[in-house]
């Protein structure tokens, strides 16, 4: 696999290298990650509590809870949008799991004729821009009476998200040993018991990772919701986009934080699956 002739001239001085240099680089990268991630979040937090904050003040001159009071009031429709976003996200995630787990299993465990074509079809919605597809779907949905409905929005959210679920699951099933299931059967377990006690624990990291991706794609979807929801289905991104375009920084940033909170909660529970040894991210490398 590795051509060892690639190391023609060993330089013994280089081999010893400079351990201290590496430690410095290592620490520098870690500091860069922490600072880089936090930088754009800081202005969001501070702005949401500021009353007046003009250049060149590094901190707000006057603090206020106005933005938060406004967001909490029924006038802002935030509660409504939050509920819509949660419902759509939950239904899309559940649907993607029901559709995607069997498909991922079929792709991960089997070789069959036409597999490449199937994989290509599944990947196509995330490579071919959504804009090209959604404008056509819009016309179709008008005829079917699906525009301006929650159901229509759920359907279009499946388009960019379902491929992620299938990819993650096919990656997980590629490393899955079916023989455990056969053993459970031969010991007398039924289909349901086998699934709950044998299959599910093994593929859980994949389901969690896939669901996280699907939920987040649905949760942050703007353009598909606006076109198919026609301004009637108000979700958080639709509301946020309107506020961001209007330019009220305090309210916009407070809304940003509301928009962030559930995602952080979910990540707290799923974090270990993402970078653990579960290989749940490995599915992206295979297709």
């Amino acid at each position, binding site marked *: 696999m590795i051509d060892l002739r690639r190391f023609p001239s060993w330089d013994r001085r280089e081999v010893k290298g400079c351990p201290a240099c590496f430690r410095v680089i290592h620490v520098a990268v870690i500091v860069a990650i922490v600072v880089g991630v936090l930088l754009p979040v800081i202005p969001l937090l501070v702005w949401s509590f500021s009353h007046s904050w003009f250049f060149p003040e*590094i901190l707000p001159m006057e603090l206020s809870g106005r933005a938060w009071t406004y967001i909490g009031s029924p006038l802002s429709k935030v509660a409504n949008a939050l509920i819509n976003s949660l419902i759509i996200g939950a239904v899309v995630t559940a649907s993607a799991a029901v559709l995607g787990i069997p498909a991922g299993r079929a792709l991960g465990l089997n070789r069959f004729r036409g597999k490449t074509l199937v994989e290509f079809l599944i990947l196509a919605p995330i490579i071919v821009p959504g*804009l090209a597809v959604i404008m056509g779907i819009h016309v179709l949905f008008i005829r079917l009476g699906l525009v301006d409905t929650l159901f229509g929005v759920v359907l279009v959210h499946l388009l960019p998200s379902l491929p992620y679920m299938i990819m993650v699951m096919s990656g997980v099933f590629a490393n899955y040993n079916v023989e455990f299931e056969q053993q459970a059967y031969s010991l007398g377990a039924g289909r349901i018991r086998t699934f709950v006690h044998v299959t599910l624990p093994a593929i859980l990291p994949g389901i969690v990772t896939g669901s996280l991706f699907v939920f987040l794609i649905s949760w942050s979807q703007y353009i598909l919701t606006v076109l198919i929801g026609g301004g009637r289905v108000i979700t958080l991104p639709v509301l946020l986009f309107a506020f961001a375009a209007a330019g009220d920084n305090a309210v916009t940033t407070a809304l940003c934080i509301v928009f962030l909170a559930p995602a952080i909660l979910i990540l707290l529970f799923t974090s270990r699956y*993402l970078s653990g040894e579960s290989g749940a991210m490995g599915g992206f490398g295979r297709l």
Partner: protein
Amino acid sequence: MNTGLSLIFMLAPALVVILVLFAGGLALGFSQSLGYMPIIGAYGFNLDAYLQLIKSPGFVPSLLLTIFISVLATLLAVVLAVATALTLRKRFVGKKIVSFLYQFPLTVPHLVVAVGVLLLVSQSGLMARAAFQVGLISDPAQFPILVFDDLGIGVILVYVWKEVPFIGLIALAVLQSMGNDYEEQARTLGANSWQTFRHVLLPLIIPGILPGSIIIFAYVFSSFEVPFLLGKSYPAMLSVLSYRLYTDVDLDARPQAMAMSILIAVFVLILVLFYRRLSQRILRRSG
């Protein structure tokens, strides 16, 4: 292994959803781009919309800007992702917190990042204020223009911030799945850190992160929200032009909007194929 029939049962539900929405949407969008829109009584079948688009003065600058932004954002994301993944796979104090922070951008909707970046790097943003406080600038106008700028720097910053962990976690999964054996062997044979990275780790990582980087490239090329909020209005990215045409009150602009979306899809496919061939050739050479 599964039999043919059970394979079809497992794959069919997901494939039907993707086929109806994706292929159906694409076909309807394409027929509209040719001027076939029975709803408004247009039964044309021609390339007028495409010709008008390509001839319009804004098209070429928009195309170049779109290519520039998506290539640079993908490239930066991949480089930073590999660098950070190499650091994060080691053990260090506080690894749990750093890993959590690293995954955090995955969960943050693009819209929120766009608002954060705007408040951070605009001429009256937090960075400009900090520069003023330490005496680097004496007026907001002296701070470099990083949002609503000619090169789409703000847009690129948003995408890089968002996509580094996506590629990085895939790279981490690849690194973990191959263990330390290759690396130790290279070290035993006398390769220094750089040689180990260049000839052992990199050729193993690249095939793994290739699909992920293609996904990012296609996403950045066609997504709409971020350039709409942080981009200049002329030249704008192609997706923004397409959206403007689609929401134009003049229904005659619809075929052009569709044509633009189809063109975006065609460009993405061409560039993705080109990118695949190029990276495979580089891989073979460095193998």
